[in-house]
């Protein structure tokens, strides 16, 4: 029987009570006494020199408090990049300044030039329209290869070129990889685009700055996945505010998907302006602003070559990728195409030789950074597509080709510098074949044919590195911060518990799942445990939520802190029960003395800790509260196998997804319902990328898909029912919960399954199409099949 509480139970999401009844408290719900509103004047050209900004008319308009331009920020720091990549030649990446408001030049449509602070939103907008900005438009660079051509316009005049870095990984393998490809029995080559995406969380970004001059303290309320990271970056690098004078609060946040990790100019602006004006300043993004100011995702152009021997064993992989950075380096941008992408190029396969080359390029587009999966979807997509293409070229079954090359012994050190601790790729593939009923595919294909439709099957595997951490490792790789996490377990006198965590929940359900772990450890009811997150003044210095890290890293910190609490509580219990500490056992919320019927309740011990009348004060301190920081020994490596069946309408090219299954290995699972929900959401985003979504710029750097009229988000009727399974679990070997993380899997694993299925469907209709770039819109599919 499934558990009804603790680890493994599908406890209902307690946060949904407020989310579903409209009683959540989001940043835009925060309105402070005396608050003013800011409206940003943004560039409507992609590249240009600012000749002048005339604010004279606007300054005298009703309600205007003050107008800021780049000149006001001349002495303010640059928005920092959190990661430094070293190139193939040992040189540091080229790193341009990133001003809060444009300094002399604009570099993408949406680049903020000036900001009007006024009494009302409408007054701020009215005045913003009266500001006259004289810009000499410059030729824009949008296409990455053109941006690297000799004589191309430079996005940043003070850099040598538009090349951020030229990265080789592992550079020492390059010659051997080249040699293996030259000597291979077969080489399959695929050129592809990983389409640019806009994250589009339901809640747009919002920031409220609130400066208290009496104590010289700044508070920033913001839509962030990691308030401590924002405090660190903005306080130390941009505004020079020491930690004890800066509080960052990220209350309820309506979805992040990566794009709310980063420190943005608007956050620094409202904090700065609030200090300057001594009143709260608020900014709420419109959806239109979000399209041109939220960091975008993906945008890689790749050539991948897969070499095989005469027995179809993979012998080498070589890739060359152009990765779009946009106009500035967003917080984690340089790490995405390198360490979150290159290190995953082994996939689930024992390819002995791998070389990854990445050229990161500045263009006159919105900055690009991590988006659900971040680098790993790009790695998975190219690898699983080229394997499918190889199977087709060689006339072998694509599943058999994968199985033949699976890594089967763990731990496994890949040729791209990571060590997988556990996994069982054969088991997940077996499970996939079962839940997808793959043996029934040919019959389903015939049914589709009878309706005049072409049916295709696509299968792929994925591996991801999650639980983004090991500080010493990421430090070697260029991270400028640690990536541990932290938790404080505060036991109250009556035994209830508040856990202050560094992770941030913006849809993940931490408020439900973290208490399940504590309840399991102590044997008390989940309702006795609450989570506190999202406020740097309340939580320890943890690094937030991204990279499927919350439970694996912060959850582990919480377990360590709870273990400390339990150890101390046992000491108190030993005193109360007049027994030796070594004989005390904790079970079902009761302390007992082994081999006796002596026991006392959890609440007796916690009360004694805070009312220490009968208490060993000479040996232990009163109170029951412990903090732990946790820095894991390795990444975690969730993996899985996905399958998709599609029907293609030969008359129109329209693709419908008929069946979709995911077999995932997440290690141990705390709440199966929430895990399945995460997989569902991830697959929806993956199908969105594969079928619908695409941010498209024209040659002048105008974003053509700048609203929902042209940017297609997946809707419920675009999506199939999902068959999901996570029973093939190989627990992580190095964290105390044995968990691996599930937040990104669906988005990583699903795009290649969809594209492989469409290519297969076209083949069944006699159309031999080697590849179609995402999104697979009816128009693109029809063009490809009629090329």
């Amino acid at each position: 029987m499934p558990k009804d509480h603790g680890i493994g139970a599908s406890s209902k999401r307690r946060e949904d009570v407020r989310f579903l009844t409209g009683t959540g408290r989001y940043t835009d719900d925060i309105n402070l006494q005396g608050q003013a509103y800011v409206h940003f004047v943004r560039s409507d050209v992609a590249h240009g020199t600012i000749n002048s900004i005339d604010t004279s008319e606007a300054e005298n308009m009703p309600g205007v408090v003050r107008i800021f331009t780049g000149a006001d920020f001349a002495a303010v720091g640059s928005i920092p990049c959190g990661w430094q990549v070293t190139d193939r030649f040992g040189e540091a990446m080229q790193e341009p300044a990133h001003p809060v408001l444009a300094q002399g030049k604009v570099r993408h449509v949406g680049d903020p030039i000036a900001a009007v602070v006024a009494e009302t939103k409408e007054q701020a907008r009215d005045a913003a329209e009266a500001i006259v900005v004289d810009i000499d438009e410059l030729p824009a660079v949008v296409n990455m290869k053109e941006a690297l051509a000799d004589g191309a316009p430079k996005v940043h005049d003070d850099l040598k070129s538009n090349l951020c870095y030229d990265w080789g990984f592992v550079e020492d393998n390059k010659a051997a990889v080249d040699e293996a490809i030259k000597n291979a029995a077969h080489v399959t080559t695929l050129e592809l685009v990983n389409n640019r995406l806009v994250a589009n969380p339901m809640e747009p970004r919002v920031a409220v700055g609130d400066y208290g001059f009496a104590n010289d303290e700044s508070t920033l309320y913001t839509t962030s996945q990691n308030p401590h990271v924002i405090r660190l970056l903005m306080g130390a690098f941009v505004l020079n505010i020491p930690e004890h004078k800066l509080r960052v609060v990220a209350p309820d946040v309506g979805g992040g998907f990566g794009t709310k990790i980063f420190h943005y100019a608007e956050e620094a602006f409202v904090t700065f302006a609030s200090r300057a004006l001594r009143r709260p300043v608020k900014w709420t993004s419109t959806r239109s602003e979000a399209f041109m100011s939220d960091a975008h995702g993906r945008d890689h152009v790749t050539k991948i070559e897969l070499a095989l021997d005469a027995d179809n064993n993979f012998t080498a992989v070589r890739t060359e990728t152009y990765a779009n950075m946009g106009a500035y380096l967003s917080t984690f941008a340089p790490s995405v195409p390198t360490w979150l992408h290159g290190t995953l190029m082994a996939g689930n396969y024992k390819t002995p030789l791998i070389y990854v080359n990445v050229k990161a390029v500045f263009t006159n587009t919105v900055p690009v950074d991590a988006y659900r999966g971040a680098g790993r979807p790009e790695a998975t997509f190219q690898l699983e597509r080229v394997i499918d293409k190889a199977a087709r070229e060689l006339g072998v079954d694509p599943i058999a080709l994968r199985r033949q090359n699976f890594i089967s012994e763990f731990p496994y050190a890949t040729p791209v510098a990571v060590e997988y601790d556990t996994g069982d790729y054969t088991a997940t593939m077996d499970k996939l074949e079962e839940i997808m009923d793959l043996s029934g595919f040919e019959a389903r294909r015939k049914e589709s044919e009878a309706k005049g439709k072409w049916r295709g099957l696509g299968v792929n595997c994925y591996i991801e590195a999650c639980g983004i951490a090991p500080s010493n490792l990421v430090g070697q790789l260029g991270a400028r911060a640690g990536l541990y996490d932290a938790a404080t377990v505060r036991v109250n006198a009556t035994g209830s518990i508040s856990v202050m965590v560094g992770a941030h929940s913006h849809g993940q359900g931490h408020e439900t799942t973290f208490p399940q772990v504590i309840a399991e450890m102590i044997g008390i009811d989940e309702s006795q445990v609450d989570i506190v997150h999202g406020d740097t003044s309340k939580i320890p210095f943890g690094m937030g939520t991204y990279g499927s890290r919350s439970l694996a890293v912060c959850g582990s910190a919480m377990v360590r802190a709870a273990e400390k609490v339990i150890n101390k509580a046992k000491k108190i219990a030993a005193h109360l029960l007049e027994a030796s500490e070594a004989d005390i056992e904790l079970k079902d919320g009761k302390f007992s003395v082994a081999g006796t019927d002596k026991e006392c309740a959890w609440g007796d011990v916690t009360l004694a800790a805070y009312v220490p009348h009968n208490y060993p004060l000479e040996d232990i301190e009163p109170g029951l509260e412990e903090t732990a920081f946790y820095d894991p020994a390795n990444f975690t490596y969730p993996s899985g196998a996905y399958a998709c069946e599609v029907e293609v309408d030969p008359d129109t090219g329209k693709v419908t997804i008929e069946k979709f299954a995911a077999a995932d290995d997440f290690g141990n699972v705390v709440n199966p319902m929430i895990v399945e929900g995460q997989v569902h959401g991830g697959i929806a985003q993956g199908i969105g990328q594969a079928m619908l979504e695409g941010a498209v710029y024209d040659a002048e750097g105008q974003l053509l898909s700048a609203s929902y009229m042209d940017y297609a988000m997946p809707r419920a009727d675009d999506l199939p029912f999902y068959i999901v399974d996570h029973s093939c679990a190989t627990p992580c070997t190095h964290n105390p919960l044995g968990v691996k993380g599930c937040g990104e899997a669906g988005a990583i694993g699903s795009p290649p399954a969809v594209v492989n299925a469409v290519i297969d469907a076209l083949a069944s209709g006699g159309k031999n199409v080697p590849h179609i770039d995402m999104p697979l819109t009816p128009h693109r599919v029809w063009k490809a099949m009629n090329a």
Partner: protein
Amino acid sequence: MYAFDVTRPKTVDEAVAALSQEDAQALGGGQTLIPTLKQRLASPSALVSLTGIEDMKGVCQDGDTLVIGGGTTHGTVASEGGAYPALAALASNIGDPAVRNRGTIGGSLANNDPSACYPSAALASNATIVTNSREIAADDYFQGLFTTALDEGEIITSVRFPIPQAANYQKFVQPASRFALVGVFVSKHADGVRVAVTGASEDGVFRWSDAEDALSGNFSPDAVDGLTASADGLMTDLHGDAEYRAHLIKVLTKRAVAACQ
């Protein structure tokens, strides 16, 4: 939005009077106008809401004609337009429930978006657009992109649809907006077949006369086989080029005829 006044007249006469103010703008369900105002792309001095005029609402049958008040929502046409099933089906697939509960047929026809659904129904059905001052045949009404025969301040009070012997609308949706990437309305009347195409042309809704001629002689999908819709003057955008749209016109016309059988 810029500031504006709002009036909510109860009768057509009051509305016409209100619209005679300078820069006044009629507001139907607001499904196009409100987003336009929010983007500050229009700045009327006054909005004259037509939603309070009860005489302009509702669906009724007058002999072999279905009469729909100009202020009738898509949702109402979908649920009460059963006497003309193809039209009710068209209305039931416009936008989403929120759009269908606010948007009106008069608003849609007055706006004449080149990708909207209703213009194809009106043109294929040989409908009559009835305004506060006159009756306009559909063939004379649609005059290009967002352009109609309506004069300044003229209000669509009702639309009269002759109920055809058979009709069907095929909509191929643009994936993002779910407007018609191409929509084809085929309508068979005693005096012939009319085929109207929306979503495709740079000039808005139009009749595909080659298909009308072929289908008037032989109302079967095969009749279209030998025809090719011209790509000249068709739209090219992110979601489909002119050639693809031309191809879809033929595919959808055949499907519409097949659905009529």
